[in-house]
């Protein structure tokens, strides 16, 4: 009997496909209409931090270097008020197998898939995660399929995404290349159903647990180098898993540093637009993912998202494309390292924040990623120019997404800007209210919602009156 493979029919089979592709029943964590037992879900995967570190060490993940960016710190101090300019540190996650922190996120899923006897793993992603899953699957003897949004209706692929696809193939994965659209998820479901492979989703407890080792490692390294805890940790933010996992790992190490999200501001560009697809120079770490995932995490390919960034986020800094390209070039020229866009987004955020912080304070950029053809900022800018986007030096605030990229002329023009956290929290509440009217929320739903935005019940009551 052949199954009905129309969009609607496949989406209607979502829950049963997910259950058999992960062996995880999310229903047992349900506590109310909105609430679920997040901590129990995270603990039930049964791995301690020590287990995670051991599993990751088997497949070339973790124990990445921590560098102090002395020259960049000095440069920031020259443009800061006296006594300002925090020490900037960088955790070189590009040293993981596959070249990014995403190896941490993929490692536990691949381990579990092998343990449970699945023949292969599948992931839907246009990011470094695909290469990470492919690399981990290769080491665990699993087949791998990566489902990726690659090209627009003219068949043109964003150079960074083309490179990420190449890397997946290099590790032996089958890469399904798709045109622009949210139906990526539809094809993921079809492929899971056909193959019976494990769904190595970015948003399972395994994915997030894998990143906890990063947060823990980072704190231990700063304690060892500087003899104290970091004051702030900047995390490039998209789907929320990097921030959630890192923050949880930091808490496990007893570190209470500020957790700051940082995204490239891509306001004005629609993420599912065929036209806009090739008019953005960043494929992740941008507000097109960062804001919607923060304000409603459960919009993903699993019933409940283990990446719940607003639970842990203290602040959120936005940077623009021109600012990140400038800092990327400066990192190469001043610090002698070439790295890719994801980590450099938070280096840019860290420069902006370090100027406000005291010079005895420490700010940590918690990831880097590899770079090369397609991912390099020169590739991105050359491609942008071909797509008709103006590229020039000047005041980066003059850049208009999709039309122009203005690269700063001077470090003092790298300022970033604050995302309004209160607005994000209220936006989350509005999304929750769309699921169920607030007057119908039970006490357990109310407590869950408050915790999900890192606030208490008094705040919740006041905020609900305003929406």
């Amino acid at each position: 009997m052949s199954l009905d493979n129309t969009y609607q029919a496949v989406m209607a089979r979502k829950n049963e496909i997910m259950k058999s592709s992960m062996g995880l029943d999310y229903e047992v964590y349900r506590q109310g209409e909105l609430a679920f037992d997040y901590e129990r879900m995270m603990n039930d995967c049964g791995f301690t931090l020590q287990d995670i570190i051991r599993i990751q060490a088997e497949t070339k993940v973790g124990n990445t270097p921590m560098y102090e960016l002395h020259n960049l710190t000095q440069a920031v101090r020259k443009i800061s008020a006296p006594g300002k300019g925090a020490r900037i540190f960088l955790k070189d996650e590009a040293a993981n197998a596959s070249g990014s922190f995403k190896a941490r996120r993929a490692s536990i899923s691949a381990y579990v898939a092998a343990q449970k006897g699945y023949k292969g793993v599948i992931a839907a992603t246009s990011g470094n995660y695909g290469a990470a899953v492919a690399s981990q699957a290769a080491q665990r003897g699993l087949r791998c399929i990566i489902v990726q949004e690659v090209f627009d209706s003219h068949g043109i692929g964003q150079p960074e995404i083309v490179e990420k696809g190449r890397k997946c193939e290099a590790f032996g994965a089958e890469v399904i290349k798709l045109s622009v659209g949210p139906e990526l998820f539809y094809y993921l479901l079809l492929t899971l159903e056909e193959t019976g492979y494990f769904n190595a989703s970015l948003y399972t407890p395994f994915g997030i647990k894998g990143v906890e080792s990063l947060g823990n490692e980072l704190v231990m390294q700063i304690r060892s180098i500087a003899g104290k805890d970091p004051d702030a940790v900047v995390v490039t933010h998209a789907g929320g898993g990097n921030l959630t996992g890192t923050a949880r790992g930091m808490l496990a190490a007893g570190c209470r540093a500020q957790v700051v999200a940082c995204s490239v501001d891509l306001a004005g560009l629609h993420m599912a637009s065929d036209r806009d697809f090739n008019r953005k120079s960043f494929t992740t770490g941008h507000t097109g993912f960062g804001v919607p995932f923060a304000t409603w995490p459960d919009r993903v390919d699993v019933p409940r998202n283990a990446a719940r960034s607003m639970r842990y986020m203290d602040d959120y800094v936005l940077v623009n494309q021109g600012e990140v390209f400038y800092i990327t070039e400066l990192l190469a020229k001043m610090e002698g390292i070439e790295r890719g866009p994801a980590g450099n987004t938070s280096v840019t955020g860290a420069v902006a924040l370090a100027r406000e912080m005291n010079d005895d304070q420490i700010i940590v950029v918690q990831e880097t990623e590899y770079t090369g053809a397609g991912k390099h900022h020169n590739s991105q800018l050359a491609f942008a120019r071909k797509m008709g986007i103006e590229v020039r030096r000047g005041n980066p605030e003059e850049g208009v997404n999709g039309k122009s990229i203005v690269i700063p002329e001077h470090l003092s023009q790298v300022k970033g800007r604050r995302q309004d956290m209160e607005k994000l929290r209220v936006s989350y509440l509005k999304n929750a209210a769309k699921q169920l009217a607030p007057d119908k929320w039970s006490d357990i739903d109310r407590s869950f919602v408050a915790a999900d935005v890192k606030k208490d019940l008094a705040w919740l009551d006041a905020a609900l009156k305003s929406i």
Partner: protein
Amino acid sequence: MSKVPAGTWVEIENILLTPEQRAPQVPEDTRATPYVMRVAGFLVAEAELGSETEVRTLSGRKIHGTLKVVRPHYEHSFGETIEELLTIGLGGEL
């Protein structure tokens, strides 16, 4: 037209959803286009470019589709030099 021999590394293409079948939430410009997939694999049997055929992918799956490219390759690069970058970090910003 000359035949492409079995075993050749090729790329096939399929229309997964026509514009009418697309997800309800897609924006207008995207909705005007079909949802297309491409995958590379080894050609199972000799075939002509543009014909319906079958490939065996790197994961070992057999997938049907229209034969589009023979021996697909990557040509993404570092792009034409952006001169605006070259002067950054030479001391002027400090």
